[in-house]
């Protein structure tokens, strides 16, 4: 036994040189990404990055603290609308408006966390669902928020930099995403995150060890809402236009499936889940343009189904993938990753 332990190794980020290498490689790739691919893919990357932030935030709540939320589109909306309203009506700079509106989202998260203290399972699901729908409907009906006409994002510039193109915005977005990912990972590894997990695994034991349930559960809601709020604020600038119908129950469900498919209680899982599902969400519309397969599907629809509804195949695929992952790997993509890693470690035995 090595008696001179460096205890920091348990919590440090780069557990080995290999990890460090891949991290740097990833950073380099992300930095070079806009130059390697067309602008359209930069937009897709931006869209994915937004979902990554939400998925991580939601995983803090769902995966680590063990609460259900079907209302995160509400926080997303609060972040988006907050940022735009603060910028256009109060003339605050972006870098002030974004965290401010995320804090507003966090405040709402805290408020939603209060009734959630006593709720679980389907009861919590319906309460959060109600919250999400209420936010959307209220925003849609208040003229101040542009009603159903939505709001356009103003020109965005930070200091001397004008971030008007997808590419410019990409760098800002990706930086924020990486920082938030690392921050989430650090929070989970330290006292607050441990308390979250403790609450999930055995809440009464956690309480008798000194964890304040009220505080940490609401904190988890608030933190999760904060992440989602930041993502919402950024999303307003990815799309450059927001309207209430963007923030529907369907989006909340999509967020939740990203987290569950990616792997509950795993940051990397959230990233993977968000990448996979949001990429599919954008790309499945092209399914009929795939050579041969698309033609075959069209013929199939002509003879057995209806050609007018053929695009709905994307729903079938989407649902199928969700179910298959859940049935065969309850830990999601993260579980698959762990298993593959084990397999290669043991190889060739």
């Amino acid at each position, binding site marked *: 036994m090595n008696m001179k332990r460096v205890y920091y190794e348990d919590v440090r980020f780069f557990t080995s040189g290999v990890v460090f290498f891949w991290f740097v490689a990833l950073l380099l790739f992300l930095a070079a990404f806009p130059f390697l691919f067309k602008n359209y893919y930069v937009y897709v990357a931006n869209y994915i990055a937004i979902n990554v932030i939400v998925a991580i935030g939601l995983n803090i709540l769902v995966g680590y603290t063990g609460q259900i939320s079907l209302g995160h589109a509400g926080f997303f909306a609060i972040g988006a609308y907050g940022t735009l309203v603060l910028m256009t009506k109060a003339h605050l700079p972006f870098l002030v408006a974004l965290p401010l509106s995320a804090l507003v989202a966090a405040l709402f998260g805290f408020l939603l966390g209060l009734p959630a203290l006593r709720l679980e399972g389907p009861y919590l699901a319906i309460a959060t669902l109600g919250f999400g729908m209420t936010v959307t409907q209220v925003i849609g009906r208040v003229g101040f928020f542009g009603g159903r006409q939505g709001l356009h994002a103003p020109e965005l510039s930070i200091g001397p930099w004008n971030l008007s193109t997808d590419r410019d915005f990409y760098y800002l977005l990706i930086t924020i995403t990486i920082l938030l990912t690392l921050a989430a990972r650090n929070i989970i590894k330290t006292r607050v995150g441990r308390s979250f997990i403790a609450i999930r695994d055995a809440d009464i034991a956690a309480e008798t060890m000194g964890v304040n349930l009220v505080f940490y559960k609401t904190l988890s809601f608030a933190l999760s809402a904060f992440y989602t709020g930041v993502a919402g604020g950024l999303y307003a600038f990815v799309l*450059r236009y927001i309207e209430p119908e963007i923030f529907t129950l369907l989006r909340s469900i999509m967020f939740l499936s990203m987290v569950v498919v990616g792997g509950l209680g795993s940051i990397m899982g959230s990233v993977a889940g968000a990448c996979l599902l949001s990429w599919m969400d954008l790309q499945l519309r092209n399914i009929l343009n795939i050579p041969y397969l698309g033609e075959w599907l069209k013929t199939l629809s002509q003879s057995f189904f209806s050609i007018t509804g053929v695009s709905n195949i994307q729903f079938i695929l989407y649902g199928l993938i969700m179910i298959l992952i859940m049935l065969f790997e309850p830990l999601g993509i993260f579980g698959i990753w762990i298993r593959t890693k084990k397999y290669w470690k043991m190889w060739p035995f």
Partner: protein
Amino acid sequence: MMKKGFLVFLTVAAMAFGFPFSAAAEEGVTDKEIHIGQWGPQTGPAAAWGSVARGTDAYFKMINADGGINGRQLIHHMFDDAYDPAKTVAGVKELQEGKGMFAWVSGVGTAPGLAVKDYLMNKKIPWVGPSAGSLHWITPPQKYLFAVYPLYEIEAKALVRYAVEKLGKKKIAIVYQNDDYGKNGVQGAAEELARLKMKLVAEVPVQLTDSDLKPHVMQLKTSEADAVLLWTSVKHAVMTIGTSAAMQFAPQFLSTSTCSDFPMMMSISKGLWKGVIAATFAELPDSKSPLMAKYKKDAFDKFAAKDERWGLFYYAGIVFSEPLVEGIKRCGKDLTREKFVSEMEKLKDFQGISGKISYKPFDANDPFSRQGQNQTTLLKCIEGGAAERLTDWMTIQ
């Protein structure tokens, strides 16, 4: 200074990775082809509007079968955006930056359209006929955006005028979808009534998600309206009429062009639609107009899928792209975007299967320099879903 270096770097990188910097002619135009893009929801809650894009597709195929325009074939790229602006933006960027579209046509929905409007306008890409009658397209007017769909206000005004002046109705109420579409209707109706020194007796908002319209009908009933405008989706229009019938409330119902597909409305409402008056922006499905007959025969019968229906939404796809085709035709062999815009501006009383369409030279202060159609016509639903024409094309400013 930094910015410049960055740009140089970008250019070099772009060239290194082989970006298509179009040197020849105009983007999306070759000797043989013209690429036109379009989005439309084939899935999701608004999927019923998906037939607009399919109508355009059949129309383009018909033109190509007839030899194309000035020797060029129209290549139609349409994609499904599920009415989700994020997907609209994705699809537009992918097609525009990938294949390169010469212009965009139609495109269903206010929200998806607004999400891509700035992008298209900044790139100076023409966009003809957004399929939603919204003021957003023309306030402020955009040089490259040509609206076709008559404003919902115009329809509201025409309907109110008819109800008051021809039918002698005294109390007009409105049921409206609580969004842009509905509110434009309320505004139009209110303006017209103000002109006639009257007021709406009830304004009842309906939410897209409502599945029970009894409270709404009760409000109408309490207001004792004798004419009710329906500014809702098809589903809610049918539910309003049905619930009214069940509650033995029978005013004259008047609806927007959204619900002017009478055969469909008759079948969904189980016959209750009979007697409803609707405004519309195009010829009727069974119209005797030769152009309409040609479209039915050469576009629909030849190119539509077997389960497609020759309904309003379908040939709306033709209505919205007629001006585009006309504009391209007038450009002749030398097709550029600038020339296209100037030719479009010269359109005067152009009539396809809709009302007359005219544009004016671009004037940032005149929204109507980019609003093509200002005409509407009123129809009454009679037995069997057929329509009786009540008015000729009316022009309302």
